[in-house]
């Protein structure tokens, strides 16, 4: 039965969540029917393997289930895509680590400003990761459009061995599209936050002196904390993407990132309220201070709602991994694979 579960999961992991529950039931019933017709036992791995080999490779079967939707990268190319992204990101991180080591050796420790250098390295890695993922997605989208199949699809029928399927991971499996979207979104957020942080720091001398502590605490510090949250989130998604599942530490990283972001958004209106007395005493109009307070509350509420919403959605996806309900199809699910007979 374990081999059946591994096969069912290998197929349904490549489908949109709303389809999974029903297809899982269908496939199990179909496999048991085929076993029964052969007079074979579901407990015999050899018999199950023979039936599964006849049913076809999981990526090809998954592609048959999604002909109506259009894939940017279809189920057949996706395993290769994931490997390429994993190798590229690992190379990028390794190259940055080597660069860090070389800089330490050449520059010595005297002039080395660890915080600044680490932030620069991190920005380089994330910018590089963003560009790399975009380029890889573009290449694979072109391959998908050109109907190029990975080498395994060219294998003669019957040569595929279902016993090589990976172990079933259950509801902890990472949704490929969520991981990619999460990775790209956090990388983009980091770049935008970097711009906001730099802009606020440069504009600080021109801001009325009475508002500077507020800008420093609510904006500059807030942006820095959000950058840390974005890095944590990107790391969590990258780990889940490469490993194909959410493990306790990657989940903890994601939760910590969400918690930190919520803290920042809650802190924004609190900071404004704390500084309100000083602002009111200064030469600032009452309406301006009031609108500042309201704006900060709105920003804080929207940011908190967004982060909490995404976190709850991710948790529900985990809890309902086998139920078939879940998030909408991702941008990866934009093009149709070719049907086969």
């Amino acid at each position: 039965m374990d081999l059946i579960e591994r096969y069912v999961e290998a197929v349904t992991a490549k489908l949109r969540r709303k389809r999974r529950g029903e297809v899982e039931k269908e496939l199990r019933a179909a496999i048991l029917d085929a076993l029964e017709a052969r007079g074979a036992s579901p407990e015999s791995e050899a018999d199950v393997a023979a039936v599964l080999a006849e049913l076809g490779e999981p990526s090809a079967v998954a592609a048959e289930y999604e002909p109506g939707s259009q894939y940017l990268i279809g189920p057949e190319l996706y395993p290769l895509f994931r490997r390429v992204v994993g190798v590229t990101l690992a190379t990028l991180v390794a190259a940055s680590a080597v660069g860090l080591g070389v800089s330490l050796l050449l520059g010595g420790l005297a002039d080395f400003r660890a915080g600044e250098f680490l932030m620069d390295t991190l920005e380089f890695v994330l910018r590089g990761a963003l560009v790399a993922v975009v380029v890889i997605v573009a290449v694979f989208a072109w391959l998908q459009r050109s109907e190029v199949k990975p080498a395994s699809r060219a294998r003669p029928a019957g040569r595929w061995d279902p016993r090589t399927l990976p172990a079933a991971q259950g509801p902890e499996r990472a949704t490929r599209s969520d991981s990619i979207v999460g990775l790209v979104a956090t990388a983009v957020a980091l770049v935008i936050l970097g711009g906001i942080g730099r802009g606020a720091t440069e504009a600080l001398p021109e801001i009325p002196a009475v508002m500077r502590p507020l800008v420093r605490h609510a904006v500059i510090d807030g942006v820095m904390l959000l950058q840390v949250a974005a890095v944590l989130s990107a790391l969590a998604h990258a780990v889940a993407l490469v490993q194909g599942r959410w493990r306790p530490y990657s989940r903890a990283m994601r939760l910590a990132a969400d918690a930190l972001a919520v803290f920042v958004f809650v802190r924004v209106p609190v900071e404004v309220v704390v500084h309100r007395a000083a602002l009111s005493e200064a030469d600032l109009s009452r309406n301006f201070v009031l609108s500042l307070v309201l704006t900060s509350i709105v920003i804080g509420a929207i940011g908190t709602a967004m982060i909490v919403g995404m976190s709850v959605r991710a948790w529900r996806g985990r809890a309902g991994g086998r139920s078939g309900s879940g998030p909408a199809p991702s941008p990866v699910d934009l093009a149709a694979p070719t049907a086969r007979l």
Partner: protein
Amino acid sequence: MGKADPRAAPGTPPEETIEKLTLELRRGVIVLACLSQLDEPGYGYELQQRLAARGMEIEQGTLYPLLRRLEEQGLLGEEWIVEGSRPRKYYRLTDAGKQARAELERQWNEMAAVLNALLASENGG
């Protein structure tokens, strides 16, 4: 995307091209084949065996997703029935499915007649 067989005569389509064309030819027919057998309820494996017994071999990995698509299009209705200790998903034609089958059957007969005539004249028949 495969390389052409170097032993093949010039102009001869490679095996892969013929295979692709054959698949395309069968792709449309398979829908009518399934619809033709589902006046009475049937489940996936049973339907595959029924079609195979009548000379229409369809891979399971193709048939199950196809039945699901036809169901989503409203041409088939489905019902899970527990037999013994496990459930089976039974399909049967809906009214829309019956209408579609009748129209596809008419189209098939017309096309078959035209093509047979074309092929017969080409072969000097």
